[in-house]
């Protein structure tokens, strides 16, 4: 399993209200949520976003609410992977559960810049910045998490 795309880079504490503002939580439609992804901190995100792009951020990405709508919005917007120095725990769990690959890697999160081309190998945990030529090692996913992601989410993987 791999991902490759251009990076959209953000700072510390990107909260779930920033990822998908609560005013749009009157729907559970994935495509409707995708349209408003990141709009309060980066109103051009959806316009700039190309399918397969990667989101990178610094510490505590996804803090705040338990809304699963946040990783759903990112995934439905076409984000292939999120790399951060650290993740808030409910967001981490939700992302795996819905099949959005996310990697914790402080070195990569710090060094990767906005617009860089990055390739990720989920089997080895290697993150390669194709723009700078640098490589970083994240913890690879254990088998059961790879299964969840490949199945498109936790419930798909158990039924």
């Amino acid at each position: 399993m791999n991902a490759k795309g251009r990076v959209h880079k953000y700072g510390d504490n990107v909260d779930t209200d920033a990822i998908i503002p609560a005013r749009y939580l009157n729907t559970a439609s994935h495509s409707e949520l995708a349209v408003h992804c990141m709009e309060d901190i980066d109103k051009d995100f959806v316009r700039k976003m190309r399918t397969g792009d990667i989101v990178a951020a610094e510490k505590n990405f996804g803090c705040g609410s338990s809304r699963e709508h946040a990783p759903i919005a990112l995934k439905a917007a076409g984000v292939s992977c999120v790399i951060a120095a650290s993740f808030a725990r409910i967001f981490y769990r939700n992302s795996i559960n819905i099949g959005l690959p996310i990697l914790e890697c402080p070195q990569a999160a710090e060094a990767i810049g906005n617009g860089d081309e990055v390739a990720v190998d989920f089997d080895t945990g290697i993150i390669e910045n194709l723009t700078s030529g640098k490589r970083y090692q994240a913890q690879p996913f254990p088998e059961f998490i790879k299964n969840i992601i490949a199945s498109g989410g936790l419930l798909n993987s158990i039924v």
Partner: protein
Amino acid sequence: MAMTMTQKILAAHAGLEDVEAGQLIEAKLDMVLGNDITSPVAINEFEKCGATKVFSTEKIALVLDHFTPNKDIKAAEQCKQTREFAHKHSIRNFYDVGEAGIEHALLPEKGLVGPGDCIIGADSHTCTYGALGAFSTGVGSTDMAAGMMSGKAWFKVPSAIKVVLKNSLQEDVSGKDVILHLIGRIGVDGALYQSLEFTGEGVASLTMDDRFSIANMAIEAGAKNGIFPVDEQTLEYCRDRYRGEIRRYVADEDAEYSRVVEIDLAALEPTVSLPHLPENTKTVREAAGLPIDQSIIGSCTNGRISDMRIAAHILKGRKVAPGVRCIVIPATQQIYLECIREGLAEIFVEAGAALSTPTCGPCLGGHMGVLASGERSISTTNRNFVGRMGHPESEVILSSPAVAAASAVLGYIAAPADLPEGGKA
């Protein structure tokens, strides 16, 4: 092996003698909670994978509290979907408008959660029930769906930070000031993946409502859960309410903690969190004078009866400042009724405040107090992220009910002591 209080509850629910930090376990659940925003996503998942039966009709609570009374057609559809699911599966603890309230005030009040329980809820503030000595944590909708199907959830056993409370609070200082102070000290990721275990002789001086406010915002420090020891006050609160068996777990003397944080309750002052993170704390003295457009008194953090009494005590015989909208929201129907019976409702209305039916509404910019660009609200809620309460260029300042009420009267950030006659009505 020595265990923290949280670890003991998790071990018991996993059927294990002992557990240690980092261990993956599967635990039996005493309660699975969802609301009108998170339940529809869970119901879709539940039905998509062909599930036909919930694990228990008693141990699931569905509460319509966020965008209710329905704020728009889409919100109405989400409530309808949740209502129909509750009826189809004979969910005993389904709460609709008229008997509902904000879930984290409602569940303890109805006795649905209690000491020693293991609870998940598809709402991040599910950590509130740690005030009762339960292990309780927020999860997403998929975990809620899996919980409704199986009655179980997997957890990574957390390590813990020990928060030692000393002495007792001064007048006009409350549980909210304690938790804001703590988040200011350790940061919004200061307890990431960990438990916050509150202990020390200062615990006894805190009311249950103070403890609910503190445990409620454990998530705002990134914590998995916040938890209080079970004492006489807890038992008194649970008497005539909680229907389960009281299970009192005590942390081992030699349990391992990654860090110890001491808080001298007597030294705390009224505290606020400035935009746009709960960790941006200042004392009210440092932040005093910032003008406000709105004051919200309510939420799962501070919509309980003692919060209403504190606000009414300050608003009695006074008026909300011209140009300020003050909105008071009792968290449950029971609290609303007590506000009427105790004469608090009259005080609020006479002061020029709007008194709302129970709802989470304004806290998350849903309805009942959404902010326009450039506006600033003081609020007894729990988050002040960019756009949390409305326009991305609006601001939220978090505070206790005492500070929100005093600020509403003066039109700027202030403590009760700053009122012309002090905090005395």
